[in-house]
């Protein structure tokens, strides 16, 4: 047991070290892509007098050699400082992230919780009735959920729930449940569908395994077989999907926040992209990149910890 524990610690440490090149790569790609761009952030406005232009460049260190700028930026990132925003003159990128992220996190977190519970329940339900009409209907709807993008679902939901029925606000943001329902549902739908399909598939596979046959042969009632024996191994693929699901939710939030005019990080990102606000766009990409990389890491660890078939024997 203790050996297996130290093996897990070893695994954890090596994976943690492996994160460093990933993060470095993330920052490097983001930085050089932004600097390859033809035209700077101050080009779109009226032609500036050269002295002012020089001052601006000096202030934002745009006059230094590229490599020096890169290492300066790297140094800033290490101290968690994303610098000032080019467009929102009085804001730093840190402040923008601090104001937008709680909103995005709330919507995304709620969507994830909703997707996890509804998705697994639906998936198990369909798996227990494999190849029945109910199964086909549920999986057909799930395929619909995967196929129809959020930016189609969202306007339709607004049209039905807000414009025609008047049940919920069509957009905007307040910290109240009525403003959260539509965005959360829109964001969760494809994830619900995907988790349902995953759960169904892995549940069916598990239910065909030998130890389940043994459990049934012992005369255990079906619900005990499912709950006590089949559920945990069937959840493993869903756990490992949590990483990609988070990435999907973050991407989806860009659209959802825009449609429902929610002042989250995704809205800032699109606005920044349209305005060529380099520091903001880079800051958000790096911030979300780090979030995704860390979450993937946590999910990996969780998976290794939950899966009894993975043992960390050394040697």
């Amino acid at each position: 047991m203790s050996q297996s524990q130290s093996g897990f610690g070893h695994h954890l440490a090596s994976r943690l070290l492996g994160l460093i090149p990933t993060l470095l790569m993330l920052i490097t790609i983001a930085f050089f892509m932004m600097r390859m761009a033809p035209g700077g952030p101050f080009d779109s406005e009226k032609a500036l007098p050269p002295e002012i232009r020089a001052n601006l460049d000096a202030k934002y260190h745009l006059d230094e050699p590229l490599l020096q700028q890169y290492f300066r930026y790297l140094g800033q990132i290490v101290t968690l400082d994303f610098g000032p925003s080019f467009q929102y003159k009085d804001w730093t990128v840190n402040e923008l992230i601090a104001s937008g992220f709680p909103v995005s996190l709330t919507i995304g977190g709620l969507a994830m919780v909703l997707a996890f519970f509804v998705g697994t329940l639906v998936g198990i339900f369909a798996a227990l009735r494999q190849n029945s009409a109910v199964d086909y209907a549920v999986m057909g709807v799930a395929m619909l959920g995967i196929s129809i993008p959020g930016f189609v679902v969202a306007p339709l939901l607004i049209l039905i729930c807000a414009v025609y029925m008047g049940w919920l606000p069509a957009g905007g943001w307040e910290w109240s449940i009525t403003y959260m329902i539509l965005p959360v549902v829109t964001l969760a739908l494809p994830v619900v569908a995907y988790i349902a399909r995953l759960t169904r598939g892995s549940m069916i596979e598990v239910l065909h395994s030998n130890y389940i046959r043994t459990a049934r042969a012992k005369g255990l009632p079906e619900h005990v077989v499912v709950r006590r024996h089949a559920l945990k191994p069937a959840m493993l693929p869903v756990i490992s999907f949590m990483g990609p699901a988070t990435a999907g939710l973050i991407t989806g939030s860009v659209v959802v926040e825009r449609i429902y005019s929610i002042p989250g990080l995704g809205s800032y990102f699109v606005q920044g992209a349209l305005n060529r606000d380099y520091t903001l766009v880079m800051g958000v990409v790096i911030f979300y990149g780090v979030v995704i990389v860390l979450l993937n890491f946590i999910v990996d660890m969780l998976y290794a910890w939950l899966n009894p078939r993975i043992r960390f024997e050394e040697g």
Partner: protein
Amino acid sequence: MAGSALKSLFGMEPRNSPGADDPFASVFAVPDIPGRSLWKDAGHRLLKNRAAVVSAVVMFLMLLAVVFGPMFLQWEGDFTDWDNTASPPSLQNGHWLGTDAVGRDILVRTLEGGRISLLVGVVSTLVSLLIGITYGSIAGYYGGVTDRLMMRMVDIIYALPFMFFVILLMVIFGRHIILIFVAIGAVNWLDMARIVRGQTLGLKNTEFIEAAQACGVSDAAIISRHIVPNLLGVVMVYVTLTIPQVILVESFLSFLGLGVQEPMSSWGALVNDGAQDMESAPWTLIVPAAFLAVTLYCFNYIGDGMRDALDPKDRA
């Protein structure tokens, strides 16, 4: 998206006969029955999958409509019919699916937008195919340190938020249509590279590759003449699954205003236009949204069907 499922499928040896290590195999073997080849078998199973067949027929009709439809309809995509602005679907004025706020025919615009959406889907998939096959087959064929370095690189890039990089690319290089092809393809090749590498690893120790090496054929020729042609079947399945993803990405970009620009249009851009007017003219939203949804739905079913058909685990 479907990476893990694909891996579990394509990671196994396709021609592994089930009884190879079974000492009783010769006792039970019935030599006179002609063997079922993997591909014939798969084709048979695909045809039995009604959802996939129906989807394929629908997609074929969609393709015909998108390519030839605008030639036979009486309106031009950019013609503004000022007598019939924001007209609901009607047979009398000839705008079968209505017009938008400036009187452009929705049906024609949707079909023309479909040309762009499908074109992006196919071309970007080809770009990702090209990069993925080259990268994956080189990594798989050379193996060792090269392989480990190259695949570690893929792992790293895999962890990055890819949609954000497409947006970044669009911001930097402007919103030209060619760039959309390249940008989407350039970030979408990772799955392809992984699958191709896995297949190449299995292929490179086979006798015909050894024979080619013994004849002194160069590595480049072995990869392009002997390895890549043997990957195409597997790759085809993956292509059907990639096309809807790519169409989705393009519509996503266009919806945000970062994709194709006026006067060109795509389904994503049309959905965006429609969403602005949906309270007064909901058909401007519903028509392109329906075309997009049907296409994605069908492609997903075809891809799923092909994958299931090739999965030997399911064999009854």
